[in-house]
C-alpha cells in the first residue's frame, strides 16, 4: 500500500470533505492513527480513470496552514510533508464550499501556492443554488490556475470529472514545493474576494432557511428545551428500539450455547466454550443494537449541523464552569465512547480547556456502560410507565446520564478553580448550514463503529473472559463450597471485597471489578460467567436469565450502589491509555484515576447507605 501515490483531501471545516471522501472511496476505508498523536487517520483507495490506484487520505478540516489546535497541526504537517509516519502527498484535492467561496478560497490559494499538483472541488453547488448563487467554474479555474470541478458529493455528481482532473494533474512531473516568501494574510484574502466575485454569475438574496430554523433552535429557552428533549428521545430510543434486535441476538447466543452442549461431551472444553466464550462474549454482543442506536443519533447530530448549535446553546452553561461550548462536542461524543471523545478534544486550542475536558470526559456515560446499566435496570427496575410514553426504566437510564453530566460539570468547575486554573478561553465557532445527511454516509459511520465494537468483543473482551474463566474454574471446589468463591479469582475477589464491602458490594461485584477495568462491559460477562460456573449442572438455574438470577442474589441497595459506582469509575484501560497519550504523561492520568475512583467510591457509598436507611437493603 505504501507504494501507492498519496493524495490528500484538504479544506475548510464544513466544506463537505468527509462526504466527498466517502463518495470517492466507498466503504473500503482504513481508520488508523498518526504515530504519536491521536488524530484519526482516515484513508481509502481511489482509482484514476486509467486504472491506477491512489491512496486518498482525509485530513482534519482547518481554516489556514497556521494551526491553532492539535488536529489542524496534523493537516499542516501532512500537507507540508513533515508529518511523522506519513509520506509526502503527491497531489491535493482542495475542497471548497461553493456557497462560501470568498472565505474558502483564501485557504485554497494558500494551498495552491505550495505548488503541488492540485485540483479544486467546488463542492455543494446544489446548496449554493438553493442559496441563490450561480458560479462559473471555468472563471474560477482560470483565476486559480488549477482545474476546478463542480461536485455534489452527497449525490456523487462530478466525481468522474474530479478523477479525470486529478489524473491530468498527476501525469505531470513531480512538483517540488514552492518555498517562496509567505504572502500577507490580508493580501491573500483580497485576492480570494476578487476571484470569488469574478466567479459569481448571479446572486440573489438567499432563502435563509438556516437562519429561520436557527431562530427556534438557538432560542435561549426553546432551543435549550429542544436540546434536552432530543437527548431524552435519544436515551429512550436506546432502550425501546433496541429490545427487538437485542432479543434476536440473545436468541442466537442461546442457540449457539445449546449447540455447544449438544455437540460436545461434558468436560473442560465444553465448559470453556459454554461458560468462558459463548456466555461471556455473548452477554456483551447482545448490546450491539443499543450501541449502534446511540452512535446513529450522534452521527445524525453531527451530519445535520446540529452539533454546533448544541455547542452554542451549551456555551452559557459551560462558561459558568470555566469551559466553552466547544467542549460540549467531545463530551457528547464521549456518550458513545470516551476514547474518540478524548481524541476529539484536539479541536480545542486552549491547553487548560482541553485538559479539563479530557479529565471530565470519562464521566460522560459511554456506551460500554450500557450493558451494565441495561442488565441492572432490567433486573431491578420494574418495566412500567410513569407517564405517557415515559417508561420507568428509560427514566432511570436518563437519570444515570444526568448524574454523569452534573458530576462532570461540578468536577470541571472545581478543576478550573484549582488545578487547571487559568483565564477562561473564548468560544469562536462556525455554524454550518443545515443539511440532510446522506444515508450511505451514516451507514458507513455505523458500520465502522460496529466493526470496532465487534473487534473489541472478539479480542480484549474475549481474552479477558478466557483468563477470568480459567481463574474462576480452578482449583475445583469440593462439594458444598461455591466454585466462584473457592477458585483463584474468588480468593482475589475476597481481598477486594474487604475494601468494597462498606459500600454494599457483594463478592460477585468484587470479582467483576478487576476484569471490568479491561472493558466495562466485562462486568456483565464476568457476572454471567460466575453464575454459569456456579450453576454447573443445575439445569433449572441455567434456564433463568441473568437478570432473574441477580434478583435472587443482590439487594436493591447493592444494585443501586453498583450503578452509582459505574457512573464515576475511571475504567477502562483504553481510556486511561488515551489520556496518558493526550496529556503526555502519567501526572494528569494518575490524577484522573485518583479523583474518579474517589468519586465512585463515595457516590456508591452514599447511594448504598441512603438506600439501606430507606429500607431497601
Amino acid at each position, binding site marked *: 500500500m505504501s507504494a501507492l501515490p498519496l493524495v490528500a483531501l484538504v479544506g475548510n471545516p464544513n466544506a463537505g470533505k468527509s462526504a466527498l471522501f466517502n463518495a470517492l472511496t466507498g466503504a473500503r476505508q482504513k481508520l488508523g492513527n498518526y504515530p504519536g498523536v491521536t488524530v484519526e487517520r482516515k484513508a481509502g483507495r481511489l482509482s484514476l480513470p486509467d486504472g491506477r490506484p491512489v491512496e486518498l487520505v482525509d485530513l482534519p478540516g482547518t481554516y489556514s496552514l497556521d494551526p491553532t489546535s492539535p488536529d489542524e497541526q496534523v493537516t499542516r504537517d501532512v500537507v507540508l510533508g513533515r508529518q511523522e509516519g506519513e509520506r509526502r502527498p503527491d497531489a491535493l484535492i482542495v475542497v471548497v464550499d461553493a456557497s462560501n467561496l470568498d472565505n474558502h478560497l483564501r485557504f485554497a490559494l494558500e494551498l495552491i501556492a505550495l505548488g503541488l499538483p492540485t485540483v479544486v472541488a467546488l463542492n455543494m453547488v446544489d446548496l449554493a443554488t438553493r*442559496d441563490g448563487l450561480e458560479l462559473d467554474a471555468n472563471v474560477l479555474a482560470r483565476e486559480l490556475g488549477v482545474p476546478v470541478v463542480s461536485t455534489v458529493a452527497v449525490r456523487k455528481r462530478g466525481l468522474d470529472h474530479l478523477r479525470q482532473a486529478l489524473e491530468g494533474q498527476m501525469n505531470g512531473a513531480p512538483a517540488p514545493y514552492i518555498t517562496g516568501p509567505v504572502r500577507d494574510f490580508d493580501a491573500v484574502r483580497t485576492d480570494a474576494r476578487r476571484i470569488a466575485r469574478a466567479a459569481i454569475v448571479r446572486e440573489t438574496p438567499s432563502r435563509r432557511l438556516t437562519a429561520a430554523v436557527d431562530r427556534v433552535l*438557538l432560542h*435561549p429557552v426553546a432551543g435549550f428545551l429542544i436540546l434536552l428533549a432530543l437527548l431524552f428521545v435519544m436515551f429512550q430510543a436506546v432502550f425501546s428500539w433496541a429490545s427487538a434486535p437485542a432479543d434476536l441476538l440473545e436468541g442466537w447466543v442461546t442457540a449457539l450455547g445449546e449447540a455447544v452442549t449438544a455437540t460436545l461431551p461434558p468436560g473442560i472444553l465444553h465448559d470453556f466454550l459454554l461458560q468462558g466464550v459463548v456466555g461471556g462474549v455473548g452477554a456483551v454482543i447482545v448490546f450491539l443494537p443499543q450501541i449502534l442506536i446511540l452512535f446513529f443519533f450522534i452521527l445524525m447530530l453531527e451530519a445535520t449541523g446540529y452539533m454546533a448549535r448544541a455547542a452554542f446553546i451549551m*456555551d452559557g452553561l459551560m462558561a459558568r464552569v470555566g469551559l466553552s461550548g466547544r467542549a460540549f462536542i467531545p463530551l457528547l461524543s464521549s456518550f458513545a465512547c470516551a476514547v474518540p471523545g478524548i481524541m476529539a478534544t484536539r479541536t480545542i486550542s486552549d491547553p487548560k480547556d482541553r485538559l479539563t475536558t479530557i479529565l471530565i470526559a470519562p464521566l460522560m456515560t459511554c456506551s460500554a456502560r450500557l450493558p451494565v446499566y441495561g442488565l441492572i435496570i432490567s433486573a431491578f427496575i420494574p418495566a412500567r410507565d410513569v407517564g405517557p410514553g415515559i417508561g420507568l426504566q428509560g427514566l432511570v437510564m436518563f437519570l444515570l446520564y444526568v448524574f454523569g453530566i452534573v458530576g462532570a460539570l461540578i468536577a470541571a468547575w472545581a478543576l478550573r478553580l484549582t488545578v487547571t486554573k487559568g483565564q477562561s478561553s473564548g468560544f469562536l465557532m462556525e*455554524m454550518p448550514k443545515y443539511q440532510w445527511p446522506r444515508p450511505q454516509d451514516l451507514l458507513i459511520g455505523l458500520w465502522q463503529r460496529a466493526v470496532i465494537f465487534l473487534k473489541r468483543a472478539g479480542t480484549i473482551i474475549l481474552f479477558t473472559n478466557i483468563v477470568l474463566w480459567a481463574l474462576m474454574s480452578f482449583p475445583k471446589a469440593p462439594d458444598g463450597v461455591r466454585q466462584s468463591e473457592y477458585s483463584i479469582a474468588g480468593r482475589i475477589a475476597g481481598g477486594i471485597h474487604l475494601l468494597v464491602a462498606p459500600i454494599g458490594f457483594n463478592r460477585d461485584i468484587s470479582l467483576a471489578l478487576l476484569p471490568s477495568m479491561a472493558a466495562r462491559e466485562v462486568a456483565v460477562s464476568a457476572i454471567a460467567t460466575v453464575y454459569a460456573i456456579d450453576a454447573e449442572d443445575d439445569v433449572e438455574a441455567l434456564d433463568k436469565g441473568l437478570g432473574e438470577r441477580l434478583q435472587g442474589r443482590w439487594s436493591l441497595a447493592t444494585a443501586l450502589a453498583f450503578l452509582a459506582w459505574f457512573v464515576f469509575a475511571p475504567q477502562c484501560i483504553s481510556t486511561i491509555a488515551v489520556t496518558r497519550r493526550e496529556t503526555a504523561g502519567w501526572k494528569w492520568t494518575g490524577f484522573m484515576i485518583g479523583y474518579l475512583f474517589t468519586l465512585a467510591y463515595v457516590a456508591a457509598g452514599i447511594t448504598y447507605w441512603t438506600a439501606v436507611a430507606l429500607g431497601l437493603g
Partner: protein
Amino acid sequence: MRLTDLPLRQPAYVDWIDWAALTPSEGQRLREFGLCEGASVEALHHGGFLGKGPIACKVGRMTIAMRRAHATAITVRTGPEMAETEKAA
C-alpha cells in the same frame, strides 16, 4: 456601535476591530472567519439565559458564533453610505 448592541437582523459593516482586546489566536480565528474592517456583518441570534450566552452572526455568507467579549471588541456601522463604500471597494 459595538456588535453587542447591534439590533438583530440589521445589516451592518465592521468599522474597526480592537485586535488588542483579543488573544492572538482569537484574532487569527476571527480573521480566518472573514472578519475584518469593511466586512458585512449581521447579528442573528443572542443565546443563553439572561443574555449571557454567545452571539451568532452572519459574516459574508458564513454564520459564526462568538462570545459577547469578542463582540464587544468589534465596532460596527449601519447605514447606506457604508454600503456604497463597500460596493465601490
